[in-house]
């Protein structure tokens, strides 16, 4: 019955659908790391904020997350911009370790604040789209919400790539990444560009949260696993390469799905870190990276 073909094919398709969402999250972190060399430990917390904001708006108005995700993006853009301007800029000159500590502390505060505000309960939303499945032949089925989030993630990823490569802002960001001392001499307002980059990266996390809400559970610590996955993607894709992180996201999704299919659900989470260790030990510049590690 061609099961040997269709079963892994379904696994790969599921993996790509999940991977596109991972890619969006990873691209956000890669942008921040690439432009500013900041490891943003609060990335997962930003995703969580986006998810809660979407949840609250959904409860209040019933608007589907697939329509309101731009709002989460805008909210997190301002949160990211403010975080950079208010918290990170003052300590920019200091040791990297301080920046890491600050973002970690921020993540803790945000997560615990969410727990205080919303409780540690798990929430789930139910939208009609969740029960729609698209069947390709008798063997392959695709759950509609994942297809929608795949489409949105692909469009946003392309848009992000376009912004970074084709716009003045993107060029300025890359200039700062190449040489942070020469860039201001060229007339680039380093602080503003970096704050915008941080805002865009955080917006990506927020939008991912909104897209995740219908297919995942919502609880204060939901961001942690995605933060860890983002690190893996940034390393896999080559430090700071946005397109690398996007491909890495898809790769991660597919590998997790196939592992889950052939070895069991428990191993799917471990395989992320096996990949992480393999890449770090065999090709530290990442699969696509010739960037400086």
């Amino acid at each position, binding site marked *: 019955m061609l099961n040997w073909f269709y079963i892994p094919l379904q696994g790969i398709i599921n993996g790509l659908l999940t991977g596109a969402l991972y890619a969006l999250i990873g691209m956000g972190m890669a942008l921040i790391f690439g432009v500013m060399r900041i490891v943003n430990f609060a990335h997962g917390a930003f995703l969580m904020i986006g998810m809660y904001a979407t949840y609250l708006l959904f409860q209040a108005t019933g608007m589907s997350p697939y329509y309101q995700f731009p709002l989460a993006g805008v909210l997190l853009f301002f949160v990211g911009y403010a975080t950079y301007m208010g918290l990170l800029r003052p300590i920019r000159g200091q040791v990297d370790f301080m920046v890491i500590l600050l973002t970690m502390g921020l993540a803790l505060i945000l997560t615990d604040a969410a727990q205080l505000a919303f409780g540690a309960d*798990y929430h789930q939303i*139910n939208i009609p789209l969740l029960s729609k499945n698209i069947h390709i032949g008798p063997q392959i089925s695709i759950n509609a919400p994942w297809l929608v989030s795949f489409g949105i993630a692909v469009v946003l990823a392309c848009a992000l790539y376009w912004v970074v490569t084709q716009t003045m802002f993107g060029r300025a960001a890359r200039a700062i990444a190449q040489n942070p001392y020469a860039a201001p001499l060229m007339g680039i307002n380093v602080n503003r560009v970096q704050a915008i980059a941080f805002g865009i990266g955080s917006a990506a996390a927020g939008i991912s949260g909104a897209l995740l809400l219908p297919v995942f559970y919502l609880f204060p610590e939901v961001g942690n696993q995605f933060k860890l996955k983002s690190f893996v993607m940034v390393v896999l894709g080559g430090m700071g390469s946005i397109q690398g992180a996007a491909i890495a996201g898809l790769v991660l999704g597919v590998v997790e799905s196939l592992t889950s299919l052939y070895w069991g659900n428990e191993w799917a989470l471990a395989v992320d870190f096996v990949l992480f260790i393999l890449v770090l030990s065999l090709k530290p510049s990442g699969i696509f990276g010739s960037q400086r590690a």
Partner: protein
Amino acid sequence: MKRFFVLFSLAISAVLFWAGCSKGPESNTFKIGVITSLTGSNAAFGQAHKNGYTIALEEINARGGLLGKKVELDYYDDQSRPDQAVQGVSKLVDQDHVPIVLGAYSSESTRAIVPVVTQKQVPLIIPTAVADNVMESNSPWIFRICAGSGSFAAATLDFLKNNGDPKKLAIVYENTNFGQSNNKSMTEAAKAAGLDLVDTEAYQASSPDYKSLLQRVKGKNPEVIYFASYLLDASTLMRQSEQLNLNPKYYTSAGTGFAAAEFPTADKGAGKYAEYTFSVSQWLPSAKWRGSAEFDQKYFALAGSHPAYHGMEAYAVLIAAAAAIDIAKSDQPAAIRDAIKQLNLAETPFGPVKFDARGQNLHPVLVTQVQGGQYKVVWPLDAAESKPIVPAPEWSKRK
């Protein structure tokens, strides 16, 4: 400066010493400790517990309380985490000096607190943890009012044997103590009954995607699937079973998620995907024990929804604890424990309560099926209110 610091540290030490030495509650309420999951992934069940405890508390206080004092419940929220449950025992016993603890909710948290209450020598009555290993320590301080996973497996197999006698079984279980224990019980019982165990799958309860797992199960073509799941995963599993067009003849389960009050609802559970699933049950509002219907009414008035058995189990342990304290006429843990051992309540809304030598109450297990969005008892025949619908119609043929 040095003198200032010396005086300051002395002052701080004095304050801390005084705070730490606060006397135990010389209040005029009788405190009973309760550990349950008021928040976290099992919050829905913890809330059910709280409702059951509240109803029992009102009844007890209406009768005059215990030992002439009003009864007060000292809740500790374990946040659905076993380490928090252990901390809860310390707080309740060492700080609040409760003579008895009721709880926790999950098998994982309960197993964690069993050695702690034994060491602190305080009786524990377990309302809902079904893992058999929580009773393995043979500690004289541990009592369980609900039936265990071994009884779940036996009841399910008994039902299946008399309703189509399928032979190929797959077990899908969540990988903490609750799931592992039910997997173990069902594996042993199925082997003894001559069934063919075609697949066993463990999963992580807070995962949103079980499609790969269900695909593997589908490939093995079982006639019966036995789930051991909590509420969130039960809902996701049934939803994704429909997406994958997984059609065993019987969806059975070890209760819990598949027996939660929210499970057949659309907004908090699996909605229409819950239809035709079987579950074991410790109690239903339609149970024939005296007081069941009244409990159902009180619960509905309090919570706005009908209780599943978790709420009733909480009610039952508090009633049992109060009865024991009445008999013991004491607030000392050892005397209360001895009274619980002797307890013989012939009639409660949860059925008879009598703990055997190991501390286990021999509670009968029912099998229910979701029909028309409601749980209906289908087995054993003398308790049945409806005929079971087997096999479950295929997904594509359902409305």
